[in-house]
């Protein structure tokens, strides 16, 4: 699988992501400057975390309107995979490629800590190396991770099985106490209807090395490495 990482000005987790992808995919991802418009030959496009354009207006808003996003849309329409993590998730929602929006954390503070995620669906290219209901740990680091969508949208996401990951206790219960940021229904990550786009707030790419505290995030990238390309 050939992966590329899009770099908007202000993105800052591109190196973390490149390390995680290389570890699992066995080759370096292509680093894509946001002015590029040709994403041909790539199977997976990753929009990593950071503060694109400082996130000064709304998180992800300015990047979502960047020319490269047209190419990302085309890539998705062709059946390519897209992974948006943290700012990447915010950009995908701002671009309308995933529903809903990410509001300020309920505590109104930036939060950087580990959280636990329950895998809601294990039959996607992103999650098939986990089991359904499995809980894994991931660092999070965001000020605006409070997932919001109107009730109808939430019901549709649930009904169509598009909630990929939920904040949970280490034992797997999705309680209010396990919800770090106030996200609706403890939602940490969602999928597009064709299951080819995943957006999530936490950073599995920062937990792929035992020396750095564990490999809980690794199955996501190992799973992508095995994916059959359309």
């Amino acid at each position, binding site marked *: 699988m050939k992966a590329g990482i899009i770099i908007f000005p202000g993105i800052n987790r591109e190196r973390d992501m490149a390390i995680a992808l290389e570890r699992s995919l066995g080759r370096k991802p292509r680093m894509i400057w946001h002015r590029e418009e040709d994403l041909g030959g790539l199977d997976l496009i990753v929009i990593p975390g950071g503060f694109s354009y400082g996130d000064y207006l709304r998180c992800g*808003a300015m990047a979502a309107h960047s020319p490269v996003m047209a190419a990302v849309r085309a890539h998705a329409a062709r059946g390519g995979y897209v992974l948006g993590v943290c700012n990447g998730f915010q950009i995908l929602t701002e671009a309308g490629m995933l529903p*809903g929006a990410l509001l300020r*954390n309920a505590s*109104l503070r930036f939060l950087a800590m580990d959280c636990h995620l329950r895998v809601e669906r294990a039959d996607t290219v992103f999650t098939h190396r986990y089991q359904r209901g499995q809980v894994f740990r991931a660092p999070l680091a965001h000020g605006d991770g409070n997932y*919001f969508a109107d009730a109808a949208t939430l019901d549709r996401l649930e009904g169509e099985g598009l909630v990929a990951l939920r904040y949970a206790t280490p034992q797997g219960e999705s309680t209010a106490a396990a919800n770090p940021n*106030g996200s609706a229904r403890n939602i940490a990550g969602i999928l597009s209807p064709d299951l080819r786009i995943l957006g999530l707030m936490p950073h599995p790419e920062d937990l792929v090395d035992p020396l750095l505290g564990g490999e809980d995030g690794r199955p996501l990238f190992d799973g992508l490495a095995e994916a059959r390309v359309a």
Partner: protein
Amino acid sequence: MKAVVTVMLKPGVLDPQGKAIGQALQHLGFDNVGEVRAGKRIELDLTETDPARARAQAEEMARKLLANTVIERFEIAVE
């Protein structure tokens, strides 16, 4: 001309910032404060001199970038 775009959360979208401000005001002893809503004000200097056209431009900017209509509504004033 100057256009002012005011962006507020839609009714029904939780406004934690407004809520926190309300609580902090209560705490400071302002006990006649009811609901508080927090939003953004963006002032734009436009080279346009026609008010109607300035408003139309500001509206397009708001729709395209300044507001996220999934969660926000906006108003335009032209001065």
